[in-house]
């Protein structure tokens, strides 16, 4: 089912958290709301599921306006960051709770709970209590509880934040699998760009209550609209160089010049920021840059280097493992100027 936010605003007292947000999530799509902590992701999610009333604007599920409806009448499934399992109920009772409050017969509830539990692989834990479960198992219970009533919409608020790295990986594909199997429209709230990129069809990146860009993960990575988006996506992150345009070249530091075709149309003297992703600086490229290795780290398959340029700005580089470069060594590596991203002074991409 399609979700539509139309000029949605939310304030708490005098604090405006979200202002006039427009967002459309297509039917069966999984969308990530990505942004730093405190930017209003949970607030948006809570408005969609009806816990918060919007200050103004409309929320539509399909063609139905649900703005004024209480949570109870929206048919949404929510997985909370803390899971919010009911500690006094068994796993089966937790999962079946949405059916219990609909006064379904106990035997049917048990049957459906067992079915959905099998879907998330916890059918052997039905009689445990939440306190007797590991984090990953609790997570699955929360998922099962959100799915049992076949909701129109599945909302996930930082569902993986409390899991350890290995479980996070496992649950990432698990949640995506369930979303695809059930064909449900889902919104995933996260501050982790890896999660957003790996799990979702599209990403809406938020900053201070506004959506900065909505695109598919690869589009957003390769074609970010602002420096903020470019900086938020990618691990290891993009490096930024500050400089100015001069005759079609990017000049920074004490007259280090990089000839960039993209700058041909930029007037001389414009203050610019150049973003270079680590994979675009290293063994192949068209512009040579000299510097000194300040930091080196191996990640097994790849090595990560920080190279300090003469003006003390830093470029990151990621390369296949090599043993001929150590910290302190002077290097002259190539930069792929066609892949470099140019941003205006206000962060807009040029």
């Amino acid at each position, binding site marked *: 089912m399609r979700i539509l936010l139309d000029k949605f605003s939310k304030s708490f007292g005098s604090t405006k958290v979200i202002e006039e947000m427009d967002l459309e999530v297509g039917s069966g799509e999984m969308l990530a709301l990505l942004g730093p902590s405190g930017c209003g992701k949970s607030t948006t999610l809570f408005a969609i599921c009806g816990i918060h009333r919007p200050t103004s604007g409309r929320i539509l599920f399909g063609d139905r306006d649900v703005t004024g409806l209480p949570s109870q009448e929206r048919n949404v499934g929510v997985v909370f960051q803390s899971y919010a399992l009911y500690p006094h109920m068994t796993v089966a009772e937790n999962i079946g709770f949405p059916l219990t409050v609909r006064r379904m017969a106990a035997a049917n509830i048990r049957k459906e709970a067992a079915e959905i539990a099998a879907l998330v692989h916890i059918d052997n834990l039905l009689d445990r209590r939440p*306190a007797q479960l590991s984090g990953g198992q609790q997570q699955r219970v929360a998922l099962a509880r959100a799915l049992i009533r076949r909701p129109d919409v599945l909302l996930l608020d930082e569902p993986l934040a409390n899991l350890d790295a290995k479980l996070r990986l496992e649950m990432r594909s698990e949640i995506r699998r369930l979303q695809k199997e059930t064909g449900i429209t889902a919104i995933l709230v996260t501050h982790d760009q890896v999660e957003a990129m790996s799990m979702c069809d599209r990403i809406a990146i938020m900053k201070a209550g506004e959506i900065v860009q909505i695109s598919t993960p690869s589009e957003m990575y390769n074609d970010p609209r602002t420096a903020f988006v470019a900086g938020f996506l990618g691990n290891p992150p993009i490096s930024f160089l500050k400089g100015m345009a001069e005759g079609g070249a990017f000049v920074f530091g004490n007259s280090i010049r990089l000839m960039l075709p993209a700058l041909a149309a930029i007037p001389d003297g414009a203050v610019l920021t150049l973003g270079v992703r680590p994979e675009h600086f290293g063994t192949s490229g068209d512009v040579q840059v000299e510097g000194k290795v300040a930091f080196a780290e191996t990640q097994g398959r790849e090595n990560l280097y920080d190279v300090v340029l003469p003006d003390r700005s830093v470029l990151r580089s990621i390369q296949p493992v090599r043993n001929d470069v150590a910290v302190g060594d002077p290097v002259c590596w190539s930069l792929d100027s066609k892949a470099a991203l140019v941003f205006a002074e206000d962060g807009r991409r040029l």
Partner: protein
Amino acid sequence: MRTSRTLGLIMIAPAAIMILLFFLMPVVLTAVFSLTNMSTATGISGGAYQVTQAAVNRLTTDMPELAAAIAGPRFVIDEEGVAALEALKLKPGLAAELRAEHLGEVFASRREAERVIKALKDRPSTREVKRISDLFNRSVLNTRFETRQALLESLRKLGFNLGPEEQEAVAKATYTGWVWTADNFRTIGNSPDMAQIFLNTAFYVAVTLLFFNVGYALFLALTTHYMAAATASIFRAVWLLPRITPVVIYVLMWKWLTWDNGFLSLFMGQFGYPPRNYLLDNAQGAWFFVILINGFIGASMGMLVFSSAIKAIPETQFHASEVDGASRWQQIRYIILPQLRWPILFVTCYQTLSLLASFNEILLSTRGGPGRATEVWSLAAYHTALQNYTGNLEYGLGAAMALVLVVIGVILSLIYLRVFRYDTLISKPLIED
């Protein structure tokens, strides 16, 4: 290891001594007192042997003849009496003949003694006979003996030849000090008054607890939970007032409300009802107000405990249940109440005990009246042992009543623990991963 254990014992010693002195000792003393017949009459130290009419009455049930004999006069011709007769300076032959012929004789009645005196050779006049016989009147009634020995010696002189069983009975009947006895418990078990007081107490505790200390407190906690924070705190503060008002003033306000020239009477007067004392007019009214007075005080504690327990439930559980489709009523039933099991147990237990033990509000309002309609167990114990109309304070019986209260409290607590399945509340979850 050993030193640390010793150190621990030393550290705990002051507390342990305090507990022993101020918590355990009163219970032990109560138990000790409850097995005696101590009262104002017996005193709490030892007593004497006093042949009172009451003592004779006590003896009458088992040994009616002996009792009548002891109560009746006795005339004994003894040296003491003869010496007194000589001092009267009547005819000297009278004393001499009595000493020579009749010394040691005992007569069960004045008539028999006077027949002998009349028959003396010196022939006393009728008036003299009466005076002389008086000198030999040796009744034991209304005399006090410091020891059992003295009592029995005196009786022997009066011609009572008592067997050991009779001696025991007489000593027991005339002893004024306290003795060990289980009679208090028999009294409690058999007296219909006590049964009525027991029923009063059960009614008072059950109704106050159910409708106010737990029921109303729960209602307040739940309603304030769904109110805006500011409104809720005002509401809670209002319900705390009865608790923080000094009880004397609080009860006085209820009296102003219910007296025959109080607010209720004035108000009802507007509709033509004659003024009356709504508090003491009849038993139903008295119970109604006694329960309100106590309930309004008691509800505040439960309200606070339940409110904070509800606050301790993470907010996301409420969000989650709303999203899951639960109405408020279902939230209360499925989310809140199950998680309030322990606080409800605690409040029920605590308030049962305090309702059983405390009587100050009742004492200050109805004094157990009208009649003994609102007399509850603890108040009755107080009246029996410390404050009663006859002036004979029965410490022993009062202590026995208090002990019964303690036992009932313990039994009820154990029942509550079972009913609320305390074991499952404290059992550790099995954590495996």
